[in-house]
Structure formats: structure tokens, C-alpha cells
């Protein structure tokens, strides 16, 4: 397939402090003991999309990510790593690497997407409709924040549900309206023009934009060049394209699209013919064709473009790691209900690694994962948690609903609930943590108790 893939891997996202750090940028955050980026790359490989550009924010992070990819996917994928400055937005990132893009169509995937939706299906759908953009939409995760109510402190947990308001045509093929961000909280305003063209539009608030888009390269580059105010693909570029579809678009006029719109020859004909055509055209194959007819013989050809949607089936898993809550949910889901993601990936998918040592009367419940080389003392309990590699865990330790990364030392009698413990953290004896995040390398002194706090070393 003549598709180039751009993976927007991000860098040190502020949403995820203290989990991310200079040593562990966002793409390398572990999900079930693998960097989150692995899941995207693996899905792309499965779909035979092997020509990749991974865009990382920040040079240092790019080096780390590059190192990991070349170590893991050597010979399997053709990957270029591109470093871009921070805070230029996803549209800015594409602008920055624009000169690398050569294929007809570009698939842009967010690096924090953990999903079993095949990217190939999105790409194929895009090709089939000859769309300008195809966005992958998935059901709003029900397993999301609302379920793990115990960790209710986070901002996003309060209002589950609506991420986007999406308008679809009756065949659920075309994307006719999309509202993101702050717009969702306002009254929805729909363009009557588009509505007139389709006749019937379904408004869904139970779908979300999964940040996987297929773009027509020429259009994407043109739009990005012309509109330098567009910052984000999700919030600016996609809504812009959706909004401007089905109408004459001076902006897009220059793009050579003659081969795509063979049915636009009518433009030279006069009004009368046009009108009679419209009236006679009782069963137009697609409303796009109808609207692409010129309204005025002298006017330039009215270009139109199609924005399509690929709706993932409701049984598929799709989540983005863009908050601490999401991090925990995804870790839980991947070891739990969405473990097919793991089993298809992993060549050694033992949930308890082969070289782990468990003390007597230590129980590891279902939906747990213990990394290689970790050791646990006696009478420990692990429930619905992920524990990384080479951790040393003392006796009488309880770990529930938590993520423990690599090389963590946990003293005797600690109780950890709903928390994230980053690498190289040391928890001394009898520490009690509930709904906390502990940044890398932090030392929690013996006997301390924390609830709902974020603990991290001061930046040096």
C-alpha cells in the first residue's frame, strides 16, 4: 500500500507528570510491561504498514525512543525518527516533517493509542472512498474512569462519556460534523447546507475520535501551509475539513484533482441544464456528486471533498493513554479484559514471568502481571496490578489496582492501592499509599501514609 504512517509519539506530556520524566518519555511508559508505543507499532506491522515516521517531541526523548525502536523492531519496520520542538501541536509536528512525506496518503496515528482496531482497515476505507480524510471513531470506553470509582480524585473521572459530538450520514460512512473540546459543552450548531445535502444526519455523542486519521497528502499539506493558525489535527484540521466539505473551496482549488472528479464536467453548462439535471437526478448515487455540480456556469468548478469515518465495532478495544487515569485503566484492561492485545503480541505471555520468585503464601490474583526477575516475599497479595521487572517486594505487602514499574523496592508491610509507582522508587517499611503517583527514583520514608498525592523528586 502506498501509505506512509506518521506516529505522533509525543514527548514529556504534562498530563502525565510525575509518570513521565526525561528518562521515560511518554512513548516509553509501560503498559503491561511494554512501552505504550509498542502497541501501535505492532498493529501497524500486523496491517503491513511498515513505512513509518515516528515524531517525538524533544531531541533527548527522540534518542531514547529511537534507541528502543531500533532495538525492538530492527528488520521488522522501516522507521525514521524525527524530533520536533515541544508544544507545536500535532499540526505543527506534521508541518515540521512535511518534506518527508511523499506517499499519496498519510496515516497519522497517535503514539498513545492502545487498540485492536487494524489500521489497515482504516487505510482501506480511506482508499475506497477516495476521501480527503478518514477518521477512526470508536465507542466511548465504558470501562473507563467511571468503573474505578475509588480513584475519583482526578478531574476527568467526574464526567464520563462525551468526548465528541459527531454527525454521520445515514450510511455511517461520511463524517458530516464533529465537535471537540469546549464546543461539546455548548449547543451544537450544524450547518444546514450539509444537512440539506444529506437529508438526514445522525448525531452521536457516544463516539469518540480515536486520533487515527488517514489524510490525502496533497490536501493535508495544502491546508497546513495555508492556514498556519491550525494547531491541532484533532481540534483544528479535522473540524476544518469536515466543515468545509461539500462547498466551493477556494483554498483547495489549486490542488490537481481532475482525475478524481470526472463527473464535474457539467460545470461548463449553463444554469438551465444544471437545474434540470438536479431535478432529473432523482437517485443520485452520492450526495457529494450532486453538490459538486457548479452553480454558475462562469464560476470556477465547485470542488468538494469527502470526509469519511471508520467506526470501530463496539467490541473492539480502543483507548488513549493521555491521562494518569487512562494509564491505569489501560494497564488494567490490557492485563484483564483486553488481554487479547497482549497474547497476540507477546511471544512469552506468561502473566507471571519465568524468573520471578514468590515467597510462601503469596497470592497473585487474576488480571495481574509480574515482570521478569521480580521477587516477592511471604504472604503478599497482588490483585489487578502490574508489577515490572526486577522489583524487590518484601513480605506482607498488598498491591491492589496499581501499576509498579521496574526496579522498584517495596519494604515489608506496605499497602498500595490505586497507585502508580515509577521505576527505581524505594518504598520503605509500612508505607501506605492510596491513589498516589510516585515519580521515578523517589524514596518514601518508612511508615508514611499518603492519599491522593503525587510524589516526585524535585527537579535538579
Amino acid at each position, binding site marked *: 500500500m502506498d501509505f506512509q504512517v506518521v506516529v505522533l509519539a509525543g514527548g514529556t506530556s504534562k498530563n502525565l507528570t510525575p509518570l513521565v520524566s526525561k528518562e521515560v518519555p511518554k512513548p516509553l511508559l509501560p503498559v503491561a510491561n511494554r512501552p505504550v508505543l509498542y502497541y501501535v507499532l505492532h498493529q501497524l506491522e500486523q496491517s503491513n504498514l511498515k513505512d513509518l515516521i515516528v515524531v517525538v517531541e524533544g531531541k533527548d526523548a527522540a534518542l531514547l525512543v529511537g534507541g528502543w525502536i531500533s532495538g525492538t523492531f530492527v528488520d521488522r519496520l522501516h522507521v525514521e525518527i524525527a524530533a520536533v520542538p515541544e508544544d507545536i501541536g500535532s499540526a505543527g509536528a506534521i508541518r515540521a516533517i512535511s518534506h518527508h512525506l511523499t506517499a499519496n496518503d498519510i496515516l497519522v496515528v497517535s503514539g498513545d493509542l492502545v487498540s485492536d482496531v487494524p489500521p489497515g482497515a482504516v487505510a482501506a476505507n480511506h482508499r475506497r472512498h477516495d476521501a480527503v480524510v478518514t477518521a477512526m471513531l470508536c465507542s466511548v470506553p465504558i470501562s473507563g474512569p467511571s468503573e474505578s470509582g475509588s480513584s475519583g480524585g482526578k478531574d476527568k473521572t467526574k464526567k464520563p462519556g*462525551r468526548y465528541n*459530538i459527531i*454527525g454521520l450520514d445515514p450510511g455511517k460512512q461520511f463524517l458530516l460534523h464533529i465537535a471537540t473540546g469546549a464546543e*461539546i*459543552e*455548548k*449547543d*451544537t*450548531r*450544524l*450547518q*444546514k*447546507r450539509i*444537512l*440539506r*445535502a*444529506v*437529508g*438526514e*444526519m*445522525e*448525531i*452521536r*455523542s*457516544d463516539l469518540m475520535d480515536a486520533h487515527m486519521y488517514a489524510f490525502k497528502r496533497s490536501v493535508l499539506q495544502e491546508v497546513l501551509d495555508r*492556514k498556519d*493558525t*491550525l494547531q491541532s489535527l484533532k481540534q*483544528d484540521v479535522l473540524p*476544518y475539513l469536515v*466543515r*468545509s466539505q461539500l*462547498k*466551493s473551496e477556494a483554498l483547495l482549488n489549486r490542488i490537481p484533482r481532475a482525475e478524481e472528479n470526472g463527473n464535474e464536467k457539467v460545470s461548463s453548462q449553463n*444554469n*438551465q441544464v*444544471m*437545474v*434540470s439535471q*438536479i*431535478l432529473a437526478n*432523482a437517485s443520485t448515487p452520492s450526495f457529494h456528486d*450532486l453538490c459538486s455540480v457548479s*452553480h*454558475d456556469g462562469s464560476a470556477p468548478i465547485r470542488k468538494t471533498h469527502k470526509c469519511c469515518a471508520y467506526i470501530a465495532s463496539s467490541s473492539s478495544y480502543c483507548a488513549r493513554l493521555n491521562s494518569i487515569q487512562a494509564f491505569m485503566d489501560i494497564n488494567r484492561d490490557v492485563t484483564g479484559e483486553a488481554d487479547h492485545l497482549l497474547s497476540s503480541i507477546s511471544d512469552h505471555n506468561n502473566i507471571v514471568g519465568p524468573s520471578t520468585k514468590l515467597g510462601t503464601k503469596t497470592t497473585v490474583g487474576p488480571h495481574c502481571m509480574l515482570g521478569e526477575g521480580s521477587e516477592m516475599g511471604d504472604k503478599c497479595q497482588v490483585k489487578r496490578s502490574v508489577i515490572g521487572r526486577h522489583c524487590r517486594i518484601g513480605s506482607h505487602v498488598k498491591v491492589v489496582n496499581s501499576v509498579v514499574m521496574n526496579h522498584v523496592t517495596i519494604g515489608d508491610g506496605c499497602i498500595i492501592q490505586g497507585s502508580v509507582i515509577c521505576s527505581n522508587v524505594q518504598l520503605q517499611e509500612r508505607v501506605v499509599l492510596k491513589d498516589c503517583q510516585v515519580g521515578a527514583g523517589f524514596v518514601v520514608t518508612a511508615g508514611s501514609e499518603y492519599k491522593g498525592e503525587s510524589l516526585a523528586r524535585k527537579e535538579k
Partner: protein
Amino acid sequence: MVAQKKGATARVSEDPEELARHPLQAILLADSFTTKFRPITLERPKVLLPLANIPMIDYTLAWLESAGVEEVFVFCCAHSKQVIDYLESSDWSSQPNFLVTTIESHNSISAGDALRLIYERHVIHGDFVLISGDTVSNMSLTQALQEHKERRKKDANAIMTMVVKQSKPSPITQQSRLGTDELFMAINPDTKQLLCYEDKAEYSKGFISLDKTLIADNPSTVLHNDKQDCYIDICSEEVLSLFTDNFDYQHLRRHFVKGLLVDDIMGYKIFTHEIHSSYAARIDNFRSYDTISKDIIQRWTYPFVPDVLCGNSAIRVERRGTYRASEITLSRSAQIGPFIVIGQGTEIGNDTKISHSVIGEGCTIGSNVTIEGSYIWNNVTIEDGCELRHAIVCDGVTMKSGAVLEPGVVLSFKVVVGQQFVVPAYSMVSLLQQPTQQDSDEELEYADSSSGNVELPSAKLNGDITSDLSETRHGPTSELGTGGVGYIWSIFEGGHDEEWRHSVAPIPTDKLAKIMLDKDEDEELLTQDGNVLSPSGELKSDSDANDSEDGDNEGSRDDYVSFEKEVEATFLRAVHENVKVDHVILEVNALRLSYNMASVDCAGAIFYSMMKLAVESPHSSSSELHRNAADVITTWQNLLKSFLHDIDEEIEVILKFEEICLESAKEFSPLFAQILHLLYDKDILEEDAILRWADEKEGADESDKVFVQRAEKFLQWLREAEEEED
């Protein structure tokens, strides 16, 4: 009978099964409470107008009977006597299982009044069908009733089921078929609950707005632009009491349906029932009259077609959709068809061509006449050589030889068109003079030939008319050529659009193209540079941003913004509903008091609303925009002037205009000087004010003086004029 009914309701409450056996009732409104069929409706009620030679109400009643309705209450208001007389003389009064009762009113001016009156009579028990007497349908009610009842059992708040039908979504189709405005409906695809109903959405041009709570409550909503409202409703008793409780409800859709949807009264819900293969449409205007007549002739409404409705052998159907009654005298050389109806006793002369038309009873049509797409009622005389295209000709009209009717002409009763006279397109001709517009502002919405005006025609018919007639007869020429009798009505202000939208004539192609272009350009204006500018909110966000610097001012500024919004809404309402200027002034003054504003602010806000109206009216070039602005200013100059008591207020208007040019509507900035001149010409602004404004700006920044410089020429001229005076 009342006692018996009470017994029935008592039993209903005991046994839900009994509900099904309750006699199905219907309310038929034999008055449309509109003026769209004037001038014809000044003399005859709309429901008695012939549709393929059969009065409209017969179609409605026949359908109700076939749909299993057992008792119909016919509500008559305008020309109630004629309706009652007709029903009494017809078969409807003597049907065994179909009871037709009339309810007469003389002072109802809306459907709301009618339903309130019916509620007071206590005649409706249980679910009923609400329909107006101008609806043609052949749908089966069984399924819709069933659905309605089942919903009612589950949810007592489901009080109404509205029948809708698929139509093509294009604005052209809607316009060219029934001549109705486009309709947007939001429907929940699973429950079929109606969530939003927008038929006249001028207020948010180019956009349709869905309430956020609506979307929050319904994860999936389908917004339709491809549905047609059939105006057939299955209602529960509560509907009547709702009308009584909300005495301001007038219009069934605009007030009642929207009221329920928007205000969420007591959680009452409306549902829709979609029909697919059957027919249902309402005659709303001349265009739908034309369309539905054709549908009837083409038998879409079967079994409600002329030959079936008239009984056995009165009308013969021949090939190519020709319906012929008995005793027709037809010349051999006449070319008849396709799709025509000819009534009893009509004579048609040599070489006459008739196609796609309906000819009533007892007509005399001469030789070499061309009739195309026209509706000729009873006892019409058309002399030799006349041409009729897409016209409606009422009873007793005489067309002298060689007269021509251009498309869209309506000749009301007994009009005489003079020899060789050409009646211009879209003319409305009546023996009655056009009612003066005085009483039309508030009432026009609801009242029509009904209510207060009802005396006018009848009185005129008896007395004045004859004198009118004799007068015109004596005169050598009238408005209708030599020997013609009748008045050509002038068109209401703003009615130019309606003229071709609602007429029987096909829409000219240039208008069709214009509809499409207009609809597109509306949005292009609003969608600038990729940013969606809300038509109402754009200035606000801008000015908010500007004013955030002086924080202490913000409170009053916010007040002003909402005040301005209110004034704008008032003004728009005034424009769309023809509210009198005096009333607008009163309303704005009330707003001024409630917001604690000065009259300076009123002037600014009104001027702002006017300019906004001008910029939102469709225009493609700045000269058109200028014309729009001139129109608005001319129409509403009195309103504006009444708030310009002194020079400060006039200066405020100029400053406001500058602000508009800079912020909300930059399209105006090239027109600044021209419009300023216009305001001066209209005596809205005095030269003192303009010069003072220029002086005040003298010391301002260079950037502030852009518009002074624009208007420099005009200012120069003003100054010179002043000097000359000195």
C-alpha cells in the same frame, strides 16, 4: 348523549382494554387561520375550494371515515355559514357510522382558540385525530394509533403522535413541491421521539442549533431535513387542556409543538410516525394546491380520486389521465389531455388545447383557447383565443376574447378580464378591494378571512360590490382592460418572495438557481477563515476580549451586551412578524428600564440590530449590501428616529457604526461614507452631529481616524454647505 359519553369514560378508567373500543374522534379545523389563499378566501372558505372539482373538505372527511373515525367535530370560523350549509346539504350529515358535528365560532383567530373552545365544550373523550380541512391523505391510521396507544400505556406523557413522510431533502424540491419552508426535525431513531422542530429558522441562518442537554440525553439523534410534516396528529385529551392552560398558544406547530419541546412542559413528549407508501399532504398555499391536484389526478391518493369520490358512473377515467364527467360538449378538433379533469356540462370549442388542467362544471370555453396547468372552477366563460398558463380561475369569471393570463395569476370570483388584456404574472385579481394593511400587522399571523374581516366581504358582497361593479362597469377601462371588472391587488411589502414561492406557476429556473446559491452564500458569510462565527455571538466575544482590560467596567459591559442582544431579538421579531413601530418602541423602552440603560444605548443597540439584519440578508456584492442597508434603514427609520432625541445620541449611532465596521461586520467598512450619507439624507443624523463627531475624532489616534478619512469627502461637502448657508 352527554350522559352516555360519561358512562363510556367511566368504563374506560376501569378497563384499559375498553380504551381500544372507544369511538375514535377527530377534530377537523375548517379554517386554516392564514391568508395565503386570499383573495379567494374572502368570499369562500378554503375548505370548500374545489380540488379536482370536489371540495377539499370532502377528501379530508372521506379519509377520516375510511380511517375508522366515528365522530368528527368540524370547527368552522371563517364563513362558518357556508361550511355548515355545505355539510348539511351533503351526504356527510346522514352517514350511519360517521357522525359529523359542527362547532361554530365567530371570534377564534387561531387553531389555539379553536381547541380551547372545543375543550370548553367537553366533547372529546380520549384520543383524537387533529387535522385541518385541507389535508389529503390515504394513510391507514391503524398502526399509528396502535403505536400511540402503546406508548401511552408505558408513558402517560406521550401525548401526541405526529405523522411525517419522507421527502427529498433538497431545498429545491421542498420549494417546488409544496411551497413550504424547509423543515428540520430531530428525532430519536429508537423511540421516534421528536426532539426538535424548526420550520422557520431565520434567526440562526445557515446553522441549526441543537440544545446541549438534548444531545447529552440522547446518545444518538437523527436530524432530518428530508421529512415532510403531514399535519395529521393523533392527540390525547391532554393536548386540549394544554392549550387551555397556555392561553398564548396559537399556532399548532410554532407555539404548541415548539413550546412543548423547548419549555419541556411537565415532561410531555411528542412522537412521530413515519408513513412510507401512503399519501398525506396539506394544501398550504397555491403551489401545494397545484401539486396536490396533480397528485390526485395521477391517482397517488387512491381511493380518494374524483371518480371514486363521486360515486358510480358520474366521472369516466380515460387513458392519459383524463377524467370526463357527463354531458360534455367537446369539439372534435379540440386537443384534450394529458392529465385533465372536465366537469359536467362544460363546452369546449374548436382547436382548443387543454393539458394538465382541471375544468369545472358548466364552463364555456371558446375556440383556439390554450389552457395549460390551470385550474378553472365552475361556470367560467372563456372566449375565443384566450391563453391561460398556470392560473387559478374561480367561479363565474369571464375572460373576453384574446385575454391572456400569465403564469401565477389568480382570478377570484366573477372577475371579468377585458378583451386582449394581458394579466401580468402573479397577479391576484378580485372584485373586492384589497383590505388595507392597517389591521394586518399583529393579526396577519393568525387571522385571515376569518374573525373581524368576515363581515367585510359579506357586507361588500351584498351592498358595496354591486355599486363597485356598476362603477367599474360604467368606466370605459378598468384595471383589467376594456370591459374588465375587478381590482388587481398590490403585493404586500416583503411579499415579492412569496409571490413566486407560493404561486401555482412553476418556479422560474433563475429563481431555482438563486435558492441554491442563496442558501450556500448564507453560510459562506458566516464561515469566515475557518472560524465559525456565530451570528449572534460574534460581536460579543470580540467586545468581551477587548474589554477584559478594564475589568471594573466588565459588569456593566456584560449588561450592555445582553441588553443589546435583547434589543436585537425584539427588532428581529418586529421585522419577521410585522410588529408596529410603536410597539417596538414600547418594548425597547421596557428593556431599557429593566436593564437600566440610557436612551443613548437604545439608539446604539437598535442601529446595531438594523445593520446586522442588513448584513445577514443575502447579498453577493457590496452594492447589494448597500441596498440591503438602505432598505432596512428606510423601513425602520421611524423606529431609530424615536430614540434620537439629541445630538449625543446621534453621535453614539456614528460611533456604533464605526465599531460595527471595525468588528462585527467588516463588510460595511467600504460603505461607511455612503451609509453615513444615507443616514443624513433620511434626516436620521443631523449635520451638527456628523461634524461634531468628526471634530471629536480630530485629536484621536491615526488608527481611530480611518473612518473620518473615509468620509472626508462627505464631511467637506457638509462643511461647505454650512458655510454657504452662513
